[in-house]
């Protein structure tokens, strides 16, 4: 690490590990005060919104899944809901429950992957979960099995864990039988205990102290912990329909970083993801998930971004509970999908990806082909909050040697489980530094 003689200290992380995608950051510390000169990514542009124009609206779930291999279901859900709004149909009953069940699988898989295998090593000082396994083999074996059950649930419902193939506009290609779903119940019963153990493990980690005054934003439903449906609500007075998303949030161009970032118009940074969902929907968690959170030392609101690892574990408990509930009351629907007539129109969809609210908007022509597409992934929406966290962390840890400070900042970014391959909208190509 360079230690310049003029009081300037530079921390450059050119390749940020253990995030899904590739990110980098540059921080300058001059005379005891930190400045972020860059928090960027080098995911090249992939132009999804551009090449989707002209494609059939029915292809949107399969195409947008390819934006992110970690949370393909979130993309399938947000796009399917948006297209169903265009077509004037609602997917209800058991078809809707199956979508929640599919999302349970993605949350389990993604949360356990991130919390236990990508994030936990930071707290314990390991380079990776593989290094961690040398000393914590039982824990790593437990989380691998737990993660596998999330993947197995997705595979059971939709064919494969990455880019599953069974979600369509209107519902499903094929609805599973009761007997098929029963095959995973024993695993889910085991997963309940394992997820509670994961909460305890997360709560036992040495926890950096940081309290941030976030504006939490998430999908909120009157009766359910949010997955697919609800209004967009914040702890600072926001309460809008999904169709008002682009009237409320905007992507701005920040000169310093040459990057696009999302803000609430006229107000600024906001936070989506586990902390926001948890803090806005605590009472809608299952009793066991609430108890696990309380036993882990969390209040009903969580403002410490490092504790997101505990919240992910708590949400895993919830996802297992919810999966068991859905399977228990499941009856095979008569038809796997709701039929519709193709029509032109505009549709919006916002659902809760593991790492936060994912918004899609489409305009479709009378021929059923996409005219216009707009996608706001969670990591782009969180970027300003990530930067605010980084500033707080660096200013509170200036005494650390460079390598330790660097690691701490990486850990702070990993609090967000940044799905950087999704977030090419705040692409920073390092055009001009210094």
């Amino acid at each position, binding site marked *: 690490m360079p230690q310049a003689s003029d009081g300037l200290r530079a921390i450059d992380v050119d*390749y940020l590990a*253990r995030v899904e995608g590739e990110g980098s950051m540059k921080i300058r510390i001059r005379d005891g005060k930190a400045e972020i000169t860059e928090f960027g990514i080098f995911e090249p542009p*992939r*132009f999804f919104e551009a090449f989707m124009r002209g494609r059939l609206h029915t292809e949107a779930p399969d195409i947008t899944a390819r934006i992110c291999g970690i949370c393909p279901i979130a993309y399938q859900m947000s796009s399917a809901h948006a297209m169903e709004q265009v077509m004037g149909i609602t997917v209800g009953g058991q078809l809707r429950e199956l979508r929640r069940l599919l999302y349970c699988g993605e949350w389990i898989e993604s949360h356990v992957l991130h919390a236990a295998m990508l994030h936990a090593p930071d707290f314990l000082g390991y380079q990776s979960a593989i290094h961690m396994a040398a000393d914590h083999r039982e824990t790593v074996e437990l989380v691998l099995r737990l993660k596998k059950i999330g993947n197995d649930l997705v595979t059971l419902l939709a*064919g494969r864990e990455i880019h599953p*193939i*069974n979600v369509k506009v209107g519902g499903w*290609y094929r609805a599973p039988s009761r007997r098929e779903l029963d095959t995973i119940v024993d695993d889910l019963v085991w997963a309940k205990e394992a997820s509670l153990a994961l909460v305890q493990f997360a709560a036992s980690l040495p926890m950096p102290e940081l309290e941030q005054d976030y504006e939490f934003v998430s999908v909120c439903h009157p009766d359910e912990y949010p997955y697919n449906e609800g209004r967009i609500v914040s702890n600072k007075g926001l309460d809008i329909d999904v169709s008002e998303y682009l009237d409320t949030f905007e992507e701005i161009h920040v000169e310093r970083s040459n990057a696009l970032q999302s803000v609430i118009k006229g107000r600024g940074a906001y936070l989506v993801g586990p902390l926001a969902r948890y803090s806005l929907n605590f009472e809608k968690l299952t009793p066991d998930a609430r108890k696990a959170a309380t036993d882990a030392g969390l209040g009903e609101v969580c403002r410490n971004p490092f504790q997101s690892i505990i919240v992910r574990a708590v949400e895993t408990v919830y996802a297992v509970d919810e999966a068991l509930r859905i399977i228990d009351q499941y009856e095979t629907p008569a038809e796997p999908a709701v039929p519709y007539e193709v029509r032109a129109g505009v549709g919006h969809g916002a659902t809760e990806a593991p790492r936060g609210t994912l918004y899609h908007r489409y305009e479709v022509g009378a021929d059923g082909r996409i005219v216009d597409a707009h996608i706001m992934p969670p990591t782009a929406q969180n970027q300003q909050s990530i930067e605010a966290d980084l500033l707080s962390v660096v200013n509170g840890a200036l005494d650390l040697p460079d390598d330790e400070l660097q690691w701490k900042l990486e850990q702070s970014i990993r609090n967000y489980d940044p799905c950087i391959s999704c977030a090419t909208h705040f692409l920073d190509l390092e055009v001009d530094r210094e």
Partner: protein
Amino acid sequence: MTAGLPKLAVHKFASCDGCQLSLLDCEDALLDVVGAIQIANFPEASREVLDGPYDLTLIEGAVSAPGDIERLQEIRAESKFLVSIGACATAGGIQALRNTRDVDEFTRYVYASPEYIDTLDKATAVADHVKVDLELRGCPISKHQLIETVIAFLNGRAPIIPTYSVCMECKRNGNTCVMVAHGVGCLGPVTQAGCGAICPSFHRGCYGCFGPMESPNTAALGERWLELGIDREVIRDQYHFFNSWADAFREAGEAYAASE
């Protein structure tokens, strides 16, 4: 911690990360794999980066940005056995849909500050630029094929990767043919096996994730789709999907685009 074992490197170009995630998704085998091979350079999984050369290198993603080709050549130079994994790395992937379009217009459409975006006009396969020792198809790859590749590498033998069509897997699964029985357009007859014929197993037609099989008769299949009453542009779109820049699918799609 695992000195002396063969070194594994995993690199990423334009992609969704799903194919390299497949390695972490091998939950049952992961701890055995890392007991037999050293994770030497795999940033998605570990902060630690060990120096090359690397015995086995996996590359995910399409070549699509300035500097990619140079980076690829450096990776090739430090890799003994190089495997490109997934539709992006073997055929440019979904982002190859830009290849026949106006990329400047794309840039203005997606980005508020297009002047900061520097991109190539085409998204292409790794093998278009450097020598590749093995390709694993799929969007995403099959994790079973990935584990088979690692095991074969460790044992000094060729991996068993079938190049026949999805139909073979479909028959082995005992599926009813969706095209024969239900008139659903299916790319299974021209698509390479590897996925386990999951789409027909869920009552939908194959959409070609694994790209063209070894001897695809795309014209005959297209004619059959026409007989089923499927529009020419839908046939074109199906060939020009996740493997649009694989030669056989590119040409097949162009045939239906040109004769509209």
